[in-house]
């Protein structure tokens, strides 16, 4: 009999919950700018409404350290580093052959990333690229996810620039994605040079054909010389394009991540501004997904560029 009573008392709770949610939503709607436009001011308390966000693209400087300006995005980066390294340290201090819960989680994340690397780049190269790719992935993903935590964007501090946020999602400051993109570029160059040696440079500055053309020309062989010169110019141009594409990659890496993260942040702020309660929740889910996807794209593209960089082009040229 008590069972029936309990299940009977459940229904009112559900209804009550729905009512509370509805009321929250309605109050939120009415106190937001949209509702005020429609209903006019119906005397709701002023603290309910959220001030209109004015997103600033440059990050705000919080304080100076040895003359270096420390922005709120740098502080957020520190937070990400502390969380990631702290967790890793706590787990790896005592690694066990039979993993405990947290170790299993870390092993799952790293194992999945390693698997991903090895599937794209092969058994050996995947292992070599794994630390770089995993660091990029974890850095981007956790930057995005930590910035979604409640309270992350609501701590204000007083600086000489006025009241600014103490923390700001690191990738909404263009310097952070740029730094990561530069690291990605450097790692690609590093691994490419290490695997192929001078042949890697030759990919960008392919001057050999041009010089041999000149040599032919100086020895009076006009036909072979001109032909060599023509091909040499083409090779030089191709090298230039390759180099340019390498640079464009940095820009596209940077702008993609910066744009996605900034847009997400603004989207959340605007949703919260329009309807203070509940309305932003779906966008939070979206941003969780976007953080993951951006991390995957950044890490995955780096991985692919790395794989391409260590693959010798000699075979292709010989085949052609």
């Amino acid at each position, binding site marked *: 009999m008590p069972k029936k009573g309990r299940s009977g008392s459940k229904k009112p709770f559900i209804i009550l919950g729905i009512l509370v949610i509805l009321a929250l939503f309605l109050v939120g709607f009415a106190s937001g700018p949209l509702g005020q436009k429609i209903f006019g001011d119906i005397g709701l308390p002023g603290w309910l409404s959220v001030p209109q966000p004015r997103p600033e693209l440059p990050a705000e400087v919080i304080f100076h350290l040895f003359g270096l300006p420390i922005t709120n995005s740098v502080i957020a980066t520190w937070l990400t580093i502390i969380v990631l390294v702290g967790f890793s340290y706590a787990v790896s201090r005592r690694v066990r052959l039979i993993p405990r819960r947290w170790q299993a989680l*870390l092993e799952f994340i790293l194992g999945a990333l390693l698997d991903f690397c090895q599937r794209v780049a092969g058994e050996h190269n995947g292992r070599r690229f794994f630390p770089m790719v995993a660091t990029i992935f974890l850095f981007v993903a956790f930057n995005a996810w930590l910035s979604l935590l409640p309270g992350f964007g609501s701590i204000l501090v007083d600086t000489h620039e006025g009241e600014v946020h103490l923390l700001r999602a690191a990738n909404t400051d263009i310097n952070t994605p740029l730094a990561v993109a530069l690291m990605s570029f450097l790692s690609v160059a590093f691994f490419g040079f290490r695997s192929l040696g001078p042949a890697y440079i030759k990919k960008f500055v392919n001057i050999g054909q041009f010089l041999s053309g000149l040599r032919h020309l100086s020895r009076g062989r006009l036909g072979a010389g001109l032909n060599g010169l023509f091909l040499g110019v083409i090779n030089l141009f191709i090298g230039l394009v390759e180099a340019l594409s390498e640079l464009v990659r940095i820009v596209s890496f940077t702008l993609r991540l910066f744009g996605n993260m900034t847009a997400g942040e603004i989207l959340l702020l605007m949703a919260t501004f329009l309807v203070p309660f509940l309305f932003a929740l779906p966008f939070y889910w979206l941003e969780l997904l976007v953080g993951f996807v951006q991390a995957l794209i950044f890490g995955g593209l780096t991985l692919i560029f790395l794989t391409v960089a260590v693959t010798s082009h000699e075979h292709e040229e010989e085949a052609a």
Partner: protein
Amino acid sequence: MEGLASLGISLPTLLAQLVNFVLLFALLYLFAYKPIMKMLDERSRKVKESLEQTEYIKEQAAHAEEEAKRRIEAASKEGQEVIARAVRTGEEVRQQSQQEARQEAESLIIRARLEIQRERDEAIDELRQEVADLTILAAGKVIDRSLDKEAHRQLIDKTLEESTTLRKS
């Protein structure tokens, strides 16, 4: 440069973020990748090892089973041989004892025959004594006076002599 600044690019922050990223890379390498990779390798090595060990043990067990089977077979063969030998020995013993019994019986029979012979001889001896006595008596009675003492004695001796010849034959 004005445009880049409005986008937020500033060299000090960029440098700071580069340093931060390198720092994160180094720390994660030290505290996450290295130990966890080592652990993963170690575990996969252990798993592989234990699988190999299992295979080895399985093989060993199969081997042992075969060995046991072989031994049981050998033992059963041996047992059968032992039984056969025992049967053969039993047969021999039986035959021997039979022969012994026969010999015994034969010797018994021979002994009995000798006894019978002896007894017969004894009986004949006695009978002869009796016959001689009777003969002497009867002869004495029949011829009484026709025979003198001297002739009497001669006759007896002769008869005895004859009897002994007979007996001897």
